[in-house]
Each structure stands twice: as C-alpha cells, then as structure tokens.
C-alpha cells in the first residue's frame, strides 16, 4: 500500500461506485439487471479496483499463468480478447438491426395492395 497515487485512488473509487450502483439496482430487482450481468460487473470492476490498489495482484496472476517476466504478453492477450468481443458485439447488433428492418419492411409491404393495379 506504499506510495498510492491519485490515479489509483480515482480508479478504485470509480470501480467501487459502479459496483455499489449495480448492487443497489440488482437489489431493487430492476428489469435489466440479470444475475449474470451483475456478477460480471462485480468481477470485472472488482478486478480493476483491486489491481489499481494492489498492483502485486497482476504480478501474481502473471506468475500463475506462467508468463514469467513477459508482462506485455498479458496485455497483448487482453487486447486480442477485447478485439474479438468488440466484433462479436458488433455482429450481434448487426443481426438485431437486420431483424428490425425485416419487421419494418413487412409492415410497409402491407400497403402494397393499392399498387397491385400496375399496368403492363
């Protein structure tokens, strides 16, 4: 806990704030708060806050995964995972957009009867 910088305090405070906020919302049984979402938020922000306050946790994880001194490999893998997740989310959004368009189109085409009188 020696030499804690302002950035560590800010990151930890933000993480704590988000976890408290989500916990309150989950406790209120808000519709959008599933148990999976809640646990994911607690885990991710809990890790961020913990590593910000205790950077030695990151070194412990590094040793457990056998990366040795190569800390950059961990960062690289984290970026790859984020990149994959980003495009996965993008693909899901595209699919939902496409489904919305199909519904809108079907509705619009209901009005085509008038146009059926097209002349050859």
């Amino acid at each position, binding site marked *: 806990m020696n030499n804690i910088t302002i950035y560590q305090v800010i990151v930890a405070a933000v993480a704590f704030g988000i976890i408290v906020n989500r916990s309150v919302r989950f406790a209120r049984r808000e519709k959008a708060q599933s148990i999976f979402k809640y646990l994911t938020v607690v885990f991710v922000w809990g890790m961020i806050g913990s590593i910000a306050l205790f950077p030695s946790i990151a070194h412990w994880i590094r040793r457990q995964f056998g990366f040795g001194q190569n800390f950059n490999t961990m960062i690289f893998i984290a970026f790859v995972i984020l990149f994959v997740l980003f*495009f996965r989310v*993008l*693909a899901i959004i*595209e699919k939902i*957009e*496409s489904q*919305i*368009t199909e519904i*809108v*189109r079907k*509705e*619009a*085409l209901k*009005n*085509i009867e*008038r*146009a*059926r009188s*097209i*002349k*050859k």
Partner: protein
Amino acid sequence: MKASLIIIIPAFNESVVIKGVIREIQSYKYTNIIVVDDGSPDSTFSISKQAGACVLRHAINRGKGAAIKTGIEAAKIMHADVVVTFDGDGQHDPKDISRLVKKISEGYDVVLGSRFLHHQEIPFVKRIGNTIANIITYFIYGIWVTDSQSGLRAYTKRAYKIIDTQNDRYEIESETLREIRRHHLKYTEIPMRVRYTAYSQQKDNRQHIWSAILTMMKLIFVS
C-alpha cells in the same frame, strides 16, 4: 408486349422536393412510381401520395439500402419486368431513365448510371470520395466501375430477384456490385446527368469517407 417498369424512390425527409421529383418523372410518361418513405418525420409520405405515387412507409428510419430493398420487394410482388432506382432529392434527371431501359433491352442485366463518364460540374470532395469508394470496391469485390456510389440504376427481373443485399445504409450501392460479380450478371455503365442543388448539398446524410471505411471493416470482419 411492353415491359412493365417500376421506378423506386427511397426518400427520407424530402418533403421540399419530392413532389417535383415525382411530377418530373410523370411528365416523361412513367406512371409506376414507388416512393419508400424511410420513416420521415416530415410530410414526405402525404406529399408523395398526393403527387400520385404508390407510397410505402417504414415506421422508423432504416436507411437508404433498406428502403431500396423494400421497393424491390414490392416490385417482386407486382412482377415488374424492369426496376429503376432513382434518388429522391432531385439530383437525377428522368431523361436518363429511357437510356437505362434502352440498355436493358439490349441484353444487359444491370445498367449503372455514372456521373463521371462525361464532363460535368461535380464538387471536388465528391470526386475524391467517389474515387476512394471505387478503389475500395475494386479491392473488396474485384469489380471496377467509374461511379460505385451512383443511385441511378436499372435492373432486369432476373437481376433484382437474385441480387441479395443485407446492408441497410449507403453500403447498398457497393454491395450491389458484389452481387453483380457473384452472379456473373451482365452490366454496363452509361453517362448520367446530375444536378447538385443547394438543397441536395445541404443534406447531411450523404455517404462520406469514414462511412466507406466503416463499411469496409464491417464487410471484412462482421459479414
């Protein structure tokens, strides 16, 4: 038998000009006009109806690509022989429709209007944007055209039935070229006249370079 021709106009917030566009097309004796109002909050729908077009309405805005596809689905229902897509902002000239259709009757499956096959006043930014889009289209789809973003196009029944586009926004112009290549459709380009008015220039929903790059990324990583 004279082939039935349907003109599809995708329109979003075009209440200022849509009546003039429809009337001008009608003055050339084209009566089968489908306006696809893409969820406009203005009076595009009612004005188009008053002007005598068949108007289909998207409940919410889905983009030019989605609107064109809705128009083409309508054309399928009505068994049109030829479909022409025509922009709703007044920049296209209905005189060019007969030239598109003439090429179709010569045996082409798809005829693309091109702004760059003859000399005319086109803003520099649009020239640059179009050149970049042409190059991207060529590298992704392997098909070279002089105006990959032109909205004035004609399709035979065979072509519009097999062309399958998925993108809802302006990407549809490039996506159509992919389909032309995929299905080995016979295509050609003809010079078209374009009228850039203060109105059409003001519209902020034109495709720009960033959109083209985003399209490329989506087509590579998501599709």
